[in-house]
Protein backbone atom coordinates (compact mmCIF):
# COMPACT_ATOMS: atom_id res chain seq x y z
CA UNK A 1 0.00 0.00 0.00
CA UNK A 2 2.79 2.35 0.88
CA UNK A 3 4.26 1.87 -2.57
CA UNK A 4 0.96 2.71 -4.24
CA UNK A 5 0.73 5.84 -2.11
CA UNK A 6 4.22 6.83 -3.15
CA UNK A 7 3.42 6.32 -6.82
CA UNK A 8 0.29 8.42 -6.42
CA UNK A 9 2.26 11.21 -4.77
CA UNK A 10 5.02 11.16 -7.36
CA UNK A 11 2.64 11.29 -10.32
CA UNK A 12 0.41 13.99 -8.78
CA UNK A 13 -2.44 11.50 -9.06
CA UNK A 14 -4.98 13.50 -7.05
CA UNK A 15 -4.27 16.65 -9.01
CA UNK A 16 -4.69 14.77 -12.27
CA UNK A 17 -8.07 13.48 -11.07
CA UNK A 18 -9.15 17.06 -10.41
CA UNK A 19 -7.85 18.24 -13.75
CA UNK A 20 -9.74 15.45 -15.49
CA UNK A 21 -12.93 16.66 -13.82
CA UNK A 22 -12.51 20.23 -15.08
CA UNK A 23 -11.48 19.24 -18.61
CA UNK A 24 -14.47 16.90 -18.80
CA UNK A 25 -16.82 19.78 -18.11
CA UNK A 26 -14.90 21.91 -20.61
CA UNK A 27 -15.19 19.26 -23.34
CA UNK A 28 -18.86 18.77 -22.61
CA UNK A 29 -19.46 22.51 -22.89
CA UNK A 30 -17.33 23.33 -25.92
CA UNK A 31 -16.88 20.20 -28.04
CA UNK A 32 -19.77 17.85 -27.25
CA UNK A 33 -22.13 20.72 -26.48
CA UNK A 34 -24.34 18.56 -24.26
CA UNK A 35 -23.94 20.70 -21.18
CA UNK A 36 -25.34 24.13 -20.51
CA UNK A 37 -24.35 26.97 -18.22
CA UNK A 38 -26.59 27.46 -15.25
CA UNK A 39 -26.28 31.23 -15.67
CA UNK A 40 -29.41 33.26 -16.21
CA UNK A 41 -28.52 36.33 -18.28
CA UNK A 42 -30.47 38.51 -15.90
CA UNK A 43 -31.48 41.72 -17.63
CA UNK A 44 -32.23 39.77 -20.81
CA UNK A 45 -33.75 36.68 -19.24
CA UNK A 46 -35.83 36.71 -16.09
CA UNK A 47 -36.75 33.94 -13.76
CA UNK A 48 -40.42 32.93 -13.58
CA UNK A 49 -41.49 34.02 -10.13
CA UNK A 50 -43.80 31.95 -7.94
CA UNK A 51 -47.20 33.41 -7.17
CA UNK A 52 -46.27 33.74 -3.52
CA UNK A 53 -43.24 35.90 -4.30
CA UNK A 54 -42.82 38.69 -1.77
CA UNK A 55 -41.93 41.80 -3.74
CA UNK A 56 -42.93 45.44 -3.36
CA UNK A 57 -45.93 46.12 -1.17
CA UNK A 58 -49.00 47.79 -2.69
CA UNK A 59 -52.23 49.36 -1.48
CA UNK A 60 -55.40 48.05 -3.08
CA UNK A 61 -58.74 49.52 -4.11
CA UNK A 62 -62.24 48.15 -4.43
CA UNK A 63 -63.86 47.74 -7.81
CA UNK A 64 -65.68 51.06 -7.41
CA UNK A 65 -62.30 52.82 -7.20
CA UNK A 66 -62.48 53.53 -3.47
CA UNK A 67 -59.54 52.76 -1.24
CA UNK A 68 -59.71 49.66 0.88
CA UNK A 69 -57.57 51.09 3.64
CA UNK A 70 -59.49 52.18 6.69
CA UNK A 71 -56.54 53.79 8.45
CA UNK A 72 -56.52 51.41 11.40
CA UNK A 73 -52.71 51.52 11.94
CA UNK A 74 -52.49 47.77 12.49
CA UNK A 75 -49.91 47.43 9.72
CA UNK A 76 -47.78 50.05 11.40
CA UNK A 77 -48.01 48.13 14.65
CA UNK A 78 -47.19 44.84 12.96
CA UNK A 79 -44.17 46.10 11.08
CA UNK A 80 -40.92 44.89 12.70
CA UNK A 81 -38.75 47.45 10.89
CA UNK A 82 -41.00 50.49 11.35
CA UNK A 83 -41.38 50.90 7.63
CA UNK A 84 -44.96 52.10 7.66
CA UNK A 85 -46.26 55.46 8.82
CA UNK A 86 -50.03 55.93 8.75
CA UNK A 87 -51.66 59.26 9.45
CA UNK A 88 -55.28 58.35 9.95
CA UNK A 89 -58.17 60.73 9.76
CA UNK A 90 -61.95 60.59 9.71
CA UNK A 91 -63.94 61.05 6.58
CA UNK A 92 -65.45 64.51 6.58
CA UNK A 93 -69.08 64.47 7.59
CA UNK A 94 -68.98 60.77 8.46
CA UNK A 95 -67.60 60.58 11.99
CA UNK A 96 -67.70 56.75 12.13
CA UNK A 97 -65.63 56.24 9.01
CA UNK A 98 -61.87 56.62 8.91
CA UNK A 99 -59.28 56.51 6.18
CA UNK A 100 -55.54 56.95 5.82
CA UNK A 101 -54.97 60.61 5.05
CA UNK A 102 -51.29 59.95 4.49
CA UNK A 103 -49.61 56.60 4.15
CA UNK A 104 -45.82 56.21 3.84
CA UNK A 105 -43.63 53.21 3.36
CA UNK A 106 -39.88 53.60 3.69
CA UNK A 107 -38.86 50.70 1.48
CA UNK A 108 -35.16 51.12 2.32
CA UNK A 109 -35.92 49.49 5.64
CA UNK A 110 -38.48 46.95 4.50
CA UNK A 111 -37.45 43.32 4.86
CA UNK A 112 -40.43 41.97 2.89
CA UNK A 113 -41.65 39.73 5.68
CA UNK A 114 -45.31 40.27 4.80
CA UNK A 115 -46.46 40.80 8.40
CA UNK A 116 -48.29 43.98 7.43
CA UNK A 117 -50.22 42.09 4.76
CA UNK A 118 -51.21 39.50 7.34
CA UNK A 119 -52.15 42.15 9.87
CA UNK A 120 -54.43 44.12 7.56
CA UNK A 121 -58.05 43.47 8.56
CA UNK A 122 -59.50 44.65 5.25
CA UNK A 123 -56.97 43.07 2.88
CA UNK A 124 -55.91 46.51 1.73
CA UNK A 125 -52.25 45.54 1.48
CA UNK A 126 -50.77 43.02 -0.93
CA UNK A 127 -47.33 41.94 -2.08
CA UNK A 128 -46.57 42.30 -5.77
CA UNK A 129 -43.92 40.50 -7.79
CA UNK A 130 -42.04 43.72 -8.59
CA UNK A 131 -38.42 43.82 -7.51
CA UNK A 132 -36.53 46.09 -9.92
CA UNK A 133 -36.64 49.19 -7.79
CA UNK A 134 -33.02 50.38 -7.87
CA UNK A 135 -32.89 54.16 -7.43
CA UNK A 136 -30.14 56.76 -7.62
CA UNK A 137 -31.58 58.61 -4.63
CA UNK A 138 -32.59 56.60 -1.62
CA UNK A 139 -35.27 59.16 -0.70
CA UNK A 140 -37.09 58.00 -3.81
CA UNK A 141 -37.78 54.76 -1.99
CA UNK A 142 -39.96 56.43 0.63
CA UNK A 143 -43.24 55.77 -1.10
CA UNK A 144 -46.37 57.77 -0.42
CA UNK A 145 -49.96 56.70 -0.73
CA UNK A 146 -50.33 57.58 -4.42
CA UNK A 147 -47.28 55.53 -5.37
CA UNK A 148 -48.47 52.57 -3.33
CA UNK A 149 -51.93 52.75 -4.88
CA UNK A 150 -50.34 52.98 -8.33
CA UNK A 151 -48.35 49.85 -7.53
CA UNK A 152 -51.57 48.11 -6.63
CA UNK A 153 -53.32 49.27 -9.79
CA UNK A 154 -50.42 48.14 -11.89
CA UNK A 155 -50.16 44.66 -10.44
CA UNK A 156 -53.72 43.71 -9.52
CA UNK A 157 -56.06 44.43 -12.39
CA UNK A 158 -58.90 42.39 -10.94
CA UNK A 159 -60.26 44.25 -7.92
CA UNK A 160 -62.28 42.91 -5.08
CA UNK A 161 -65.98 43.70 -5.12
CA UNK A 162 -67.12 46.08 -2.43
CA UNK A 163 -69.67 44.26 -0.34
CA UNK A 164 -73.10 45.81 -0.44
CA UNK A 165 -74.26 45.04 3.08
CA UNK A 166 -71.63 47.37 4.41
CA UNK A 167 -73.09 50.48 5.90
CA UNK A 168 -71.49 53.54 4.32
CA UNK A 169 -70.71 55.00 7.71
CA UNK A 170 -69.17 51.87 9.26
CA UNK A 171 -65.68 50.65 8.67
CA UNK A 172 -65.82 47.17 7.27
CA UNK A 173 -63.63 44.50 8.72
CA UNK A 174 -63.30 41.07 7.22
CA UNK A 175 -62.42 39.34 10.47
CA UNK A 176 -65.67 37.77 11.58
CA UNK A 177 -67.30 37.45 8.22
CA UNK A 178 -66.49 33.88 7.49
CA UNK A 179 -69.76 32.82 9.12
CA UNK A 180 -71.93 35.46 7.52
CA UNK A 181 -75.20 34.21 6.13
CA UNK A 182 -75.23 34.04 2.34
CA UNK A 183 -76.49 37.19 0.75
CA UNK A 184 -79.91 37.33 -0.80
CA UNK A 185 -79.67 38.35 -4.38
Amino acid sequence: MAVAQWVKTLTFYEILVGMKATITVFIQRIILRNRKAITLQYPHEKRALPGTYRGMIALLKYDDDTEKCVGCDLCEAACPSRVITVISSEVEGEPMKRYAKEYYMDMTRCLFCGLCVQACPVDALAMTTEYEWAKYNKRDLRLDKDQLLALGDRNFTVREKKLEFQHPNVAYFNIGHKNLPPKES
Partner: protein
Amino acid sequence: MEMLVFAGAAVVKITVVMGVVLLTVAFLTLAERKVLSWMQDRMGPMEVGPYGTLQPIADGIKLFFKEDIIPAGANRFLFSLAPILSLVPAFIGFAVVPYGPNREIELFGVTIKPFIITDINIGILYILAFASIGAYGVILGGWASNNKYSLLGGLRAAAQVISYELNIGLAIIGVLILTGSLSMVTIAEKQAGGFWHWNLIGGMQIIAFVVYLISAVAETNRLPFDLPEADSELVAGWMTEYSGMRFAFFFMAEYANMILVSCIASVLFLGGYNAPYPGTLLPDKLSWIEGVAWFTVKVYAFLFLFFWLRATLPRLRYDQLMRFGWKVMLPLALGNIVITSIVVYFVRR
Protein backbone atom coordinates in the same frame (compact mmCIF):
# COMPACT_ATOMS: atom_id res chain seq x y z
CA MET B 1 22.76 52.99 -45.23
CA GLU B 2 23.45 49.51 -43.95
CA MET B 3 23.05 50.74 -40.40
CA LEU B 4 19.72 52.35 -41.32
CA VAL B 5 18.33 49.17 -42.89
CA PHE B 6 19.47 47.13 -39.92
CA ALA B 7 17.90 49.53 -37.42
CA GLY B 8 14.72 49.78 -39.49
CA ALA B 9 14.37 46.01 -39.61
CA ALA B 10 14.92 45.78 -35.85
CA VAL B 11 12.28 48.43 -35.19
CA VAL B 12 9.80 46.60 -37.43
CA LYS B 13 10.47 43.28 -35.69
CA ILE B 14 10.13 44.83 -32.23
CA THR B 15 6.90 46.58 -33.22
CA VAL B 16 5.38 43.37 -34.55
CA VAL B 17 6.41 41.32 -31.50
CA MET B 18 5.22 43.97 -29.06
CA GLY B 19 1.94 44.33 -30.92
CA VAL B 20 1.31 40.60 -30.92
CA VAL B 21 2.28 40.26 -27.26
CA LEU B 22 0.09 43.17 -26.16
CA LEU B 23 -2.82 41.86 -28.19
CA THR B 24 -2.32 38.41 -26.70
CA VAL B 25 -2.18 39.91 -23.21
CA ALA B 26 -5.44 41.76 -23.82
CA PHE B 27 -7.26 38.74 -25.15
CA LEU B 28 -5.70 36.37 -22.62
CA THR B 29 -7.70 38.16 -19.95
CA LEU B 30 -10.84 37.36 -21.92
CA ALA B 31 -9.68 33.82 -22.72
CA GLU B 32 -8.97 33.17 -19.07
CA ARG B 33 -12.39 34.33 -17.94
CA LYS B 34 -14.06 32.36 -20.71
CA VAL B 35 -12.13 29.12 -20.12
CA LEU B 36 -12.67 29.36 -16.37
CA SER B 37 -16.38 29.90 -16.80
CA TRP B 38 -16.67 27.05 -19.29
CA MET B 39 -15.03 24.76 -16.77
CA GLN B 40 -17.28 26.01 -13.97
CA ASP B 41 -20.68 25.85 -15.73
CA ARG B 42 -20.81 29.60 -16.14
CA MET B 43 -20.83 31.85 -19.19
CA GLY B 44 -18.19 34.48 -18.53
CA PRO B 45 -18.42 37.93 -20.09
CA MET B 46 -21.31 38.07 -22.54
CA GLU B 47 -22.31 41.74 -22.79
CA VAL B 48 -19.65 43.62 -24.78
CA GLY B 49 -19.67 42.51 -28.39
CA PRO B 50 -20.79 39.09 -29.61
CA TYR B 51 -20.25 36.55 -26.80
CA GLY B 52 -18.27 39.18 -24.91
CA THR B 53 -15.37 39.18 -27.38
CA LEU B 54 -14.77 42.93 -27.03
CA GLN B 55 -14.57 42.79 -23.23
CA PRO B 56 -10.78 43.48 -23.09
CA ILE B 57 -11.32 46.74 -24.98
CA ALA B 58 -14.03 47.82 -22.56
CA ASP B 59 -11.79 46.85 -19.63
CA GLY B 60 -8.90 48.80 -21.11
CA ILE B 61 -11.00 51.94 -21.61
CA LYS B 62 -12.33 51.63 -18.08
CA LEU B 63 -8.87 51.26 -16.55
CA PHE B 64 -7.56 54.14 -18.63
CA PHE B 65 -10.19 56.57 -17.39
CA LYS B 66 -10.20 55.44 -13.78
CA GLU B 67 -8.99 57.76 -11.07
CA ASP B 68 -5.31 57.35 -10.31
CA ILE B 69 -5.09 57.15 -6.52
CA ILE B 70 -1.83 57.45 -4.57
CA PRO B 71 -2.39 56.78 -0.85
CA ALA B 72 -1.49 59.61 1.51
CA GLY B 73 1.20 57.65 3.34
CA ALA B 74 2.72 56.09 0.25
CA ASN B 75 6.22 56.67 -1.01
CA ARG B 76 5.21 58.48 -4.19
CA PHE B 77 8.38 57.80 -6.17
CA LEU B 78 8.55 54.06 -5.53
CA PHE B 79 4.77 53.76 -5.80
CA SER B 80 4.96 55.13 -9.34
CA LEU B 81 8.13 53.25 -10.21
CA ALA B 82 6.93 49.79 -9.16
CA PRO B 83 4.43 49.14 -11.99
CA ILE B 84 7.01 50.14 -14.61
CA LEU B 85 9.64 48.02 -12.92
CA SER B 86 7.21 45.15 -13.12
CA LEU B 87 6.09 45.67 -16.73
CA VAL B 88 9.36 46.39 -18.53
CA PRO B 89 11.21 43.17 -17.52
CA ALA B 90 8.15 41.18 -18.52
CA PHE B 91 8.28 42.56 -22.06
CA ILE B 92 12.04 42.74 -22.42
CA GLY B 93 12.46 38.95 -22.34
CA PHE B 94 10.65 38.57 -25.66
CA ALA B 95 13.73 40.02 -27.41
CA VAL B 96 15.60 36.70 -27.41
CA VAL B 97 12.78 34.25 -28.10
CA PRO B 98 13.01 32.54 -31.50
CA TYR B 99 9.54 32.77 -33.01
CA GLY B 100 10.37 30.90 -36.19
CA PRO B 101 13.18 29.15 -38.09
CA ASN B 102 16.60 30.76 -38.02
CA ARG B 103 16.30 32.10 -41.56
CA GLU B 104 18.33 34.83 -43.15
CA ILE B 105 17.11 37.18 -45.85
CA GLU B 106 19.06 39.72 -47.83
CA LEU B 107 17.61 43.24 -47.75
CA PHE B 108 19.59 46.03 -49.50
CA GLY B 109 22.75 44.03 -48.94
CA VAL B 110 22.09 43.52 -45.22
CA THR B 111 21.51 40.09 -43.70
CA ILE B 112 18.38 40.06 -41.53
CA LYS B 113 16.91 37.27 -39.43
CA PRO B 114 13.18 37.92 -39.63
CA PHE B 115 11.96 35.64 -36.81
CA ILE B 116 14.52 36.49 -34.16
CA ILE B 117 14.90 39.99 -32.74
CA THR B 118 18.36 39.26 -31.34
CA ASP B 119 20.35 36.09 -30.92
CA ILE B 120 22.56 36.87 -27.95
CA ASN B 121 24.67 33.95 -26.76
CA ILE B 122 23.39 34.22 -23.15
CA GLY B 123 19.70 34.40 -24.11
CA ILE B 124 18.21 32.30 -21.35
CA LEU B 125 20.42 33.91 -18.70
CA TYR B 126 19.26 37.32 -19.91
CA ILE B 127 15.60 36.32 -19.51
CA LEU B 128 16.18 34.96 -16.01
CA ALA B 129 18.08 38.10 -15.01
CA PHE B 130 15.26 40.38 -16.09
CA ALA B 131 12.61 38.15 -14.55
CA SER B 132 14.39 38.68 -11.23
CA ILE B 133 14.20 42.44 -11.69
CA GLY B 134 10.45 42.03 -12.21
CA ALA B 135 10.20 40.72 -8.67
CA TYR B 136 11.47 44.09 -7.41
CA GLY B 137 8.40 45.74 -8.88
CA VAL B 138 6.17 43.52 -6.78
CA ILE B 139 8.19 43.96 -3.59
CA LEU B 140 8.61 47.73 -3.95
CA GLY B 141 4.95 48.16 -4.89
CA GLY B 142 3.95 46.26 -1.77
CA TRP B 143 6.25 48.28 0.45
CA ALA B 144 5.57 51.72 -1.06
CA SER B 145 1.80 51.40 -0.64
CA ASN B 146 2.07 51.83 3.14
CA ASN B 147 -0.60 49.19 3.65
CA LYS B 148 -0.27 46.08 5.75
CA TYR B 149 -1.90 43.84 3.14
CA SER B 150 0.33 45.21 0.40
CA LEU B 151 3.41 44.72 2.54
CA LEU B 152 2.46 41.14 3.38
CA GLY B 153 1.80 40.46 -0.30
CA GLY B 154 5.14 41.96 -1.25
CA LEU B 155 6.99 39.94 1.35
CA ARG B 156 5.32 36.75 0.25
CA ALA B 157 6.15 37.57 -3.36
CA ALA B 158 9.79 38.13 -2.43
CA ALA B 159 10.10 34.79 -0.66
CA GLN B 160 8.13 32.88 -3.28
CA VAL B 161 9.78 34.34 -6.36
CA ILE B 162 13.28 33.83 -4.96
CA SER B 163 12.71 30.21 -3.96
CA TYR B 164 11.02 29.25 -7.19
CA GLU B 165 13.38 31.16 -9.44
CA LEU B 166 16.12 29.00 -8.01
CA ASN B 167 14.19 25.91 -9.12
CA ILE B 168 13.66 27.35 -12.60
CA GLY B 169 17.36 28.04 -12.91
CA LEU B 170 18.27 24.53 -11.79
CA ALA B 171 15.61 22.87 -13.95
CA ILE B 172 16.90 24.37 -17.18
CA ILE B 173 20.50 23.41 -16.44
CA GLY B 174 19.76 19.89 -17.69
CA VAL B 175 18.74 21.37 -21.03
CA LEU B 176 21.82 23.56 -21.08
CA ILE B 177 24.06 20.55 -20.45
CA LEU B 178 22.45 18.73 -23.37
CA THR B 179 22.68 21.70 -25.70
CA GLY B 180 25.94 23.18 -24.56
CA SER B 181 24.65 26.67 -25.24
CA LEU B 182 22.73 29.44 -23.48
CA SER B 183 21.40 30.88 -26.72
CA MET B 184 17.67 30.31 -27.19
CA VAL B 185 18.16 29.99 -30.97
CA THR B 186 20.77 27.26 -30.64
CA ILE B 187 18.66 25.39 -28.10
CA ALA B 188 15.69 25.41 -30.49
CA GLU B 189 17.81 24.43 -33.50
CA LYS B 190 19.33 21.43 -31.73
CA GLN B 191 15.88 19.92 -31.23
CA ALA B 192 14.97 19.76 -34.92
CA GLY B 193 13.84 16.52 -36.56
CA GLY B 194 10.82 15.08 -34.85
CA PHE B 195 9.46 14.99 -31.33
CA TRP B 196 11.93 12.28 -30.26
CA HIS B 197 14.65 14.92 -30.58
CA TRP B 198 12.92 17.33 -28.22
CA ASN B 199 14.60 17.83 -24.89
CA LEU B 200 11.49 16.61 -23.10
CA ILE B 201 11.63 13.16 -24.71
CA GLY B 202 14.99 12.77 -26.45
CA GLY B 203 16.85 14.48 -23.63
CA MET B 204 14.86 12.66 -20.92
CA GLN B 205 14.18 15.99 -19.23
CA ILE B 206 10.71 15.07 -18.01
CA ILE B 207 11.54 15.77 -14.36
CA ALA B 208 13.11 19.08 -15.27
CA PHE B 209 10.06 19.87 -17.37
CA VAL B 210 7.64 19.22 -14.50
CA VAL B 211 9.82 21.17 -12.08
CA TYR B 212 10.05 24.02 -14.57
CA LEU B 213 6.28 24.10 -15.18
CA ILE B 214 5.38 24.13 -11.49
CA SER B 215 8.02 26.73 -10.70
CA ALA B 216 6.88 28.85 -13.64
CA VAL B 217 3.32 28.86 -12.31
CA ALA B 218 4.68 29.86 -8.92
CA GLU B 219 6.95 32.54 -10.34
CA THR B 220 4.18 34.23 -12.29
CA ASN B 221 2.07 34.28 -9.09
CA ARG B 222 -0.71 32.28 -10.68
CA LEU B 223 -3.07 29.93 -8.93
CA PRO B 224 -2.49 27.60 -7.10
CA PHE B 225 0.56 29.63 -6.06
CA ASP B 226 -1.02 33.09 -5.99
CA LEU B 227 -0.13 33.73 -2.36
CA PRO B 228 1.18 37.26 -2.98
CA GLU B 229 -2.26 38.16 -4.34
CA ALA B 230 -4.41 35.83 -2.18
CA ASP B 231 -7.75 37.58 -2.62
CA SER B 232 -9.35 35.87 0.33
CA GLU B 233 -6.59 36.76 2.79
CA LEU B 234 -4.82 39.90 1.57
CA VAL B 235 -7.55 41.78 -0.40
CA ALA B 236 -5.36 41.91 -3.52
CA GLY B 237 -1.91 41.59 -1.95
CA TRP B 238 0.65 44.01 -3.34
CA MET B 239 -1.89 45.46 -5.79
CA THR B 240 -4.35 46.51 -3.06
CA GLU B 241 -3.67 50.25 -3.27
CA TYR B 242 -3.21 50.42 -7.03
CA SER B 243 -5.87 51.65 -9.40
CA GLY B 244 -6.26 52.79 -12.98
CA MET B 245 -3.32 52.48 -15.33
CA ARG B 246 -0.84 51.56 -12.61
CA PHE B 247 -2.96 48.54 -11.76
CA ALA B 248 -3.26 47.78 -15.48
CA PHE B 249 0.56 47.74 -15.71
CA PHE B 250 0.79 45.08 -12.99
CA PHE B 251 -1.98 43.15 -14.66
CA MET B 252 -0.31 43.27 -18.07
CA ALA B 253 3.00 42.29 -16.50
CA GLU B 254 1.40 39.19 -14.99
CA TYR B 255 -0.02 38.07 -18.31
CA ALA B 256 3.11 38.99 -20.26
CA ASN B 257 5.10 36.90 -17.78
CA MET B 258 2.74 34.01 -18.42
CA ILE B 259 3.38 34.26 -22.16
CA LEU B 260 7.11 34.56 -21.58
CA VAL B 261 7.40 31.47 -19.39
CA SER B 262 5.25 29.59 -21.92
CA CYS B 263 7.62 30.67 -24.70
CA ILE B 264 10.64 29.53 -22.67
CA ALA B 265 9.01 26.21 -21.84
CA SER B 266 8.21 25.50 -25.47
CA VAL B 267 11.69 26.51 -26.66
CA LEU B 268 13.61 24.65 -23.97
CA PHE B 269 11.57 21.46 -23.71
CA LEU B 270 9.23 21.16 -26.68
CA GLY B 271 11.52 22.14 -29.52
CA GLY B 272 10.25 25.69 -30.03
CA TYR B 273 9.26 26.17 -33.66
CA ASN B 274 10.18 22.58 -34.64
CA ALA B 275 7.32 20.36 -35.76
CA PRO B 276 6.84 17.01 -34.02
CA TYR B 277 7.71 15.24 -37.31
CA PRO B 278 11.04 15.47 -39.19
CA GLY B 279 11.32 18.28 -41.68
CA THR B 280 8.36 20.33 -42.84
CA LEU B 281 5.23 19.62 -44.84
CA LEU B 282 5.19 22.90 -46.73
CA PRO B 283 7.80 23.64 -49.43
CA ASP B 284 11.04 25.14 -48.19
CA LYS B 285 10.06 28.71 -49.12
CA LEU B 286 6.92 28.59 -46.95
CA SER B 287 8.17 26.32 -44.18
CA TRP B 288 8.50 29.31 -41.83
CA ILE B 289 4.68 29.46 -41.65
CA GLU B 290 4.69 25.94 -40.25
CA GLY B 291 7.41 26.82 -37.73
CA VAL B 292 5.62 29.89 -36.44
CA ALA B 293 2.34 27.96 -36.31
CA TRP B 294 3.87 25.15 -34.24
CA PHE B 295 5.47 27.65 -31.89
CA THR B 296 2.13 29.42 -31.44
CA VAL B 297 0.32 26.14 -30.81
CA LYS B 298 2.82 25.12 -28.14
CA VAL B 299 2.72 28.49 -26.38
CA TYR B 300 -1.06 28.55 -26.35
CA ALA B 301 -1.18 24.99 -25.04
CA PHE B 302 0.90 26.13 -22.07
CA LEU B 303 -1.33 29.15 -21.56
CA PHE B 304 -4.35 26.87 -21.56
CA LEU B 305 -2.62 24.76 -18.94
CA PHE B 306 -2.33 27.87 -16.75
CA PHE B 307 -6.09 28.43 -16.97
CA TRP B 308 -6.78 24.74 -16.48
CA LEU B 309 -4.72 24.66 -13.28
CA ARG B 310 -6.45 27.78 -12.04
CA ALA B 311 -9.87 26.26 -12.64
CA THR B 312 -8.91 23.07 -10.81
CA LEU B 313 -6.68 23.72 -7.85
CA PRO B 314 -7.22 25.66 -4.63
CA ARG B 315 -4.50 27.89 -3.21
CA LEU B 316 -1.66 26.31 -1.24
CA ARG B 317 -0.91 27.29 2.31
CA TYR B 318 2.22 29.36 2.73
CA ASP B 319 4.23 26.70 4.59
CA GLN B 320 3.16 24.09 2.03
CA LEU B 321 4.40 26.35 -0.75
CA MET B 322 7.79 26.83 0.89
CA ARG B 323 8.18 23.19 1.83
CA PHE B 324 7.24 22.10 -1.68
CA GLY B 325 9.71 24.55 -3.21
CA TRP B 326 12.70 23.78 -1.04
CA LYS B 327 12.20 20.16 -0.01
CA VAL B 328 10.66 18.66 -3.14
CA MET B 329 11.42 20.76 -6.21
CA LEU B 330 14.99 21.70 -5.30
CA PRO B 331 16.23 18.11 -4.69
CA LEU B 332 14.44 16.94 -7.83
CA ALA B 333 16.07 19.65 -9.94
CA LEU B 334 19.50 18.93 -8.42
CA GLY B 335 19.08 15.20 -8.97
CA ASN B 336 18.13 15.87 -12.56
CA ILE B 337 21.34 17.83 -13.08
CA VAL B 338 23.45 15.00 -11.64
CA ILE B 339 21.76 12.30 -13.72
CA THR B 340 21.84 14.35 -16.92
CA SER B 341 25.52 15.17 -16.40
CA ILE B 342 26.42 11.51 -15.87
CA VAL B 343 24.44 10.35 -18.89
CA VAL B 344 25.83 13.08 -21.11
CA TYR B 345 29.39 12.34 -19.90
CA PHE B 346 29.17 8.65 -20.81
CA VAL B 347 27.17 9.09 -24.04
CA ARG B 348 29.52 11.76 -25.38
CA ARG B 349 32.50 9.43 -24.84
